[in-house]
């Protein structure tokens, strides 16, 4: 008998395909799990719409639910329910430890250039705030590039969305 708890636990073991230090649950992309007999319905909210890992994530969830003996139904929710604020505190810690600066919390207004160019962002390696924006974009849609004047290292900063 599959339980919701077992499904959540199984999904929490699936790493993000592009940033494997964080799980799909800690990334906040699993919005809801409901179990009805063997049927397991998962509401999944993509991070960025153009993220090439979306299909890999869905396939991994299907495999892991099937391993529990469930019949997976993954519903992709294309609404506004995911933001970087959904990344859990544990997820933020894992990101920082792996050298990715976690996203700043969302505010009512979208970020502005003057903020992103300021030194309000902390280097994940040395903790210095002496950092500057190198590029709004980075190796994947969810990241920007910054440079730390303290330890003279470039680092990847999660965008706030």
């Amino acid at each position, binding site marked *: 008998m599959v339980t919701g708890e077992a499904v959540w636990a199984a999904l929490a073991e699936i790493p993000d395909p592009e940033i494997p230090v964080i799980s799909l649950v800690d990334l906040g992309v699993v919005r809801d799990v409901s179990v009805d007999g063997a049927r397991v319905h998962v509401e999944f909210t993509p991070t960025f719409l*153009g993220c090439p890992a979306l299909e890999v994530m869905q396939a991994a969830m299907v495999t892991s639910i099937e391993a529990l003996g469930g019949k997976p139904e993954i519903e992709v929710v294309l609404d506004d329910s995911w933001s970087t604020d959904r990344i859990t505190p544990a997820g933020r810690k894992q990101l920082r430890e792996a050298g990715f600066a976690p996203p700043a919390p969302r505010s009512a207004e979208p970020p502005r250039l003057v903020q992103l160019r300021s030194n309000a962002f902390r280097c994940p390696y040395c903790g210095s705030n002496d950092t500057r924006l190198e590029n709004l974009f980075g190796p994947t849609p969810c990241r920007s590039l910054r440079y730390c004047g303290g330890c003279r290292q470039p680092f990847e900063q999660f965008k706030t969305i």
Partner: protein
Amino acid sequence: MSERAQRLLEIADDELVLGWRDSEWTGIAPFLEEDVAFSSIAQNEIGHARALYELAARDLDTTADELAFDRAPEEYRCAPFVELRLLDWADTIARRVLYEAADTIRLEALKADPDPELAGLAAKMDREEVYHRLHAEMWADRLRDEPRFRAAVDSLWGQALGVLEGELATVLADRMPAQLGWTPAQAAPAPRNGHSDGFRALWDEMTMVRRSIPGASW
């Protein structure tokens, strides 16, 4: 075809075709950071197209891939503005600045739409577009006094107005001077009917692999 499906296809086609054009800078942008930026922006735009096609596909009982790649060239509803093959950096930046301004207005309207699916998806797209707008703002500021950039904006302005219809185009015309810090030369809006000369070649290339084995499962 429902009005909703037509609307979805119009925006999806704009995003797909502009994503295609912007991706042409991958590997040949004037410096590495812009190579990364254009690749990322193109990826986002094509991702937006995919989500919009998925909503339209549900209404039309088809798939996003079929809508993106299996239609005849004359069935695409994109604005001629996004089709243009711009080989000049000033023109390319001018298009990004103008398109983002138009797209912002379109997304504002969609976010307020009574259809919750349209409004929800628009809100999600809008979060990502914030970074495209910042990129455009950065360039518009950097090139503000460059005659070549101003000439590029002037030459594309009528085409950009054609991305929007009616009242929304008026909003764009009203906002653009403040956003640029100067006023583009008067231009008549280029309507969204028919395609530019280069569209057929773009379509040929964009659909070439898929057409090579019709009906294949990729």
